[in-house]
């Protein structure tokens, strides 16, 4: 998508960007909040930033070698925070609503976060990783649900994180009414699909396919820190 978005100035690019923003607004919001802005300011800032981003179509700046959409967003946001905000606040406060960020939703989510001592940058990366995972897991879940296999997904979702089950496979398969072999196949398929979707999702935020693994490792470290 990033590749799409940076390629041209067409409406297609704009849409792609808007779509990405819709997914990843929360990490940016969290970053802005952690930098010490009030909820209202944080909301305005996030909106304003996205508005500006879409307005300038500045994704054309995302050079391929720079790679990651994540780093780009953070750098742009920092730039926006330092330069633009003061100037724009006076005239534009509360006007741009680019992403459907319902009032209070962001803050409600923020207030549920456990306290920690992360720097804003670390927090941003961690939230980014969490958002990404949420999106992917949800997508897998929706796929299974639309295929009428929602219950199977819920029963086997443990296997997304690893193959160790809470209960023996034999017991689990008996509960699901599958043979143990069939269940192992189902677990394998679920894991494969999940990995595929996760890599696809990450591929949309990096420049080349080869960077995917690097990005996963980076996000893994961000989660662990």
């Amino acid at each position, binding site marked *: 998508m990033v590749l799409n978005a940076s390629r041209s100035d067409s409406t297609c690019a704009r849409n792609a960007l808007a779509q990405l923003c819709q997914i990843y607004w929360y990490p940016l919001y969290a970053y802005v909040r952690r930098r010490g802005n009030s909820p209202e300011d944080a909301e305005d800032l996030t909106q304003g930033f996205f508005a500006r981003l879409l307005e300038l179509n500045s994704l054309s700046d995302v050079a391929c070698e720079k790679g990651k959409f994540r780093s780009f967003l953070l750098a742009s946001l920092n730039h926006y925070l330092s330069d633009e905000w003061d100037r724009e606040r006076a005239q534009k406060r509360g006007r741009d609503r680019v992403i459907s960020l319902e009032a209070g939703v962001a803050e409600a989510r923020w207030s549920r976060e456990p306290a920690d001592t992360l720097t804003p940058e670390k927090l941003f990366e961690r939230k980014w990783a969490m958002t990404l995972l949420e999106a992917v897991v949800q997508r897998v879940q929706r796929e299974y649900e639309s295929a009428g296999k929602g219950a199977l997904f819920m029963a086997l979702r443990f296997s997304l994180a*690893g193959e160790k089950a809470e209960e023996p496979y034999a017991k689990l398969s008996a509960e699901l009414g599958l043979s143990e072999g069939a269940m192992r196949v189902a677990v394998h398929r679920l894991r494969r699909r999940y990995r595929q979707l996760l890599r696809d999702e990450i591929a949309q935020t990096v420049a080349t396919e080869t960077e995917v693994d690097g990005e996963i490792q980076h996000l893994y470290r961000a989660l662990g820190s």
Partner: protein
Amino acid sequence: MNTKTIKLCRECGKPLAPDTLLGLCPECLMKAGLAPSSRATVPVASDAFVEGPETETKAFVPGTKLGYIGDYELLEEIARGGMGVVYKARQSSLKRIVAVKMIRSGELADEAEVKRFRTEAQAAAQLQHPNIVAIHEIGAHQGQHYFSMDYVEGRNLAQIANGKPVAARAAAEWLKAIAGAVQFAHQRGVLHRDLKPQNIMLDAAGRPRVMDFGLAKNLGGDSTLTNTGAVMGSPCYMSPEQARGRNDLVGPASDVYSLGAILYELLTGRPPFRGKSPMDTLSQVVSDEPPRPRSLNPGAPVDLETICLKCLEKEPVRRYPTARELEADLDRFLAGEPVQARPASALRRTMSWSRRHRWVFSAAVSVLILTLMGLAYGLWEQTRFLIWLNAHPGYVKAAGPRTAALDSLLGRVFGLFLVFASLLDVGYRKLATRAPWKKLFEPPTHPPTLGVTAAFGALALAGMVAILGLTARGIEAFVWEGASLVSYEWLFCVYIPFFYMFTVLLQVVTQQRRISVEPVSGAIKLYVPPTGANIPPVVAPVVASWLNLGFCVLLGLSMILGYSFWPYFWLMLGLRLGGFIRWKLSNLMSEWKTGHRPLRHGIQWLAWILVTVFALAVLCSLFLIVARIAHPKSLLGPPDNLSMAYAGGLVAGWLLVQLSLKKRRAS
């Protein structure tokens, strides 16, 4: 228990957040996305251990748990808590089995904390005592701090007690040994600060051994309390001064408190306080008294209970000053000698109760003082009046024709009015419910038509006017001939019918327009019910029933003071307080209910009774005073000293209302 169970990831063993990502571990989810070939190159996460002490550069798959930390070869994971993970390990150089505790990264936030942790651990490492799990070494491995200690094979006290009381003698013996160990540490300047059953191991020989000395302050201590209650240990064993964050008051007596809390749990199978949330527990620790152990386990010895409660005193100075004293008292208990701890006296208990319930206490005191003042003033006035009357014999009033006429009228009219009012009441209820007689107290289903309502209202009003006429004649007799207005006959003949009529009138009015009464403030709202809507039953005191009750109390008081005992008054009061009658707002009718109201409601009811009665009494007093000013010749006598007492009670009642409001806000 307050300790939340934390689910751990089966793959990497990290604690999981329950509500995100369907309860899955984000790190493992992320790792699962790697292409199979590149999975082995994931850099080591900060908490993964590297195989071999020298091979830090070698990449290693995260989630591999066992390896080396420094000199220690990790053998198996023993326990996991908010503070970190404990492993059984073999010390390579000395070929011995030890326990190694890894401190969770993030627990020691900055350099200063790391330094403090090291200082305290060094002090704790000096403690060599048979009942203390000794610390061997502290160190850091890849930025993670750890310390090694004796490996104790056995179970901790929490596992042994397992929610049930243990034998009192065994508990006393264990606690004595623990107190000895704690005293040993205190003498060397080390406080534990986090004594709890989970921290006390019973080794293979049945010896209790205390773990984690001196480490609690920096690790998993109070700093994590408000933000991450899930991670924090249970505050059940924390002393009140720790719970209040008064670190300046924390000292040996705080550990004595925790020892008492452990004894409490051993005796009863539960900690002294446990709330719905950690914060709730903390507030209980600060302000509540624990239930007596013998109320939970009648088999617990009295002396041990006394010792336990002495440890659990809120004020450090009231506890055993040192663990040594506690140890000595436990020794006396075990030897069958009398213990030195004494149960709190009734006076001390009252004092501590009054400190915790300042409002009730001040209300009670103000009632007492004002009542005494009122009585004194009344006596003084009475004496003055009698002296004055001696000097002016012409002012003595005598019953005359007005009183005689009134007496005969009262005798005849009372029965008539009461029957009239009752018939009106019952008739209206019957019309409004259209139910069998036994269901007369059900909510109305068929509000009568406006015409019928108006007729009933007019009748009730007529009855009231007649009674007011009677009252006027009574006042006339009172002013000119000194006939009593608060006598037995008056109460029966005027007040009862009057309030009965008033009730009927209110009913009639509220069938068409519902009245809602705010139960606390007593504010009355009138509004027209939405058409067709069911009338929800609302439990609330209603003006009419309160007035009814108020006059019953007035009547009862006059009975107690001058006449015979009257059971109806007590019945009404008891029913009102016990909550057997519910007054329904929707129909102003009482409803019989079994079961009790909680005490707080009782206080509220009591407050309302006081307010109602005293408001009436004050009105009477005002009337007397006004009459006296307006007509000096008809000197009415001294202000009723009872009224003065009522006035005092009015203030008290107001205070009680404030109290119940305050409690309500607090909850």
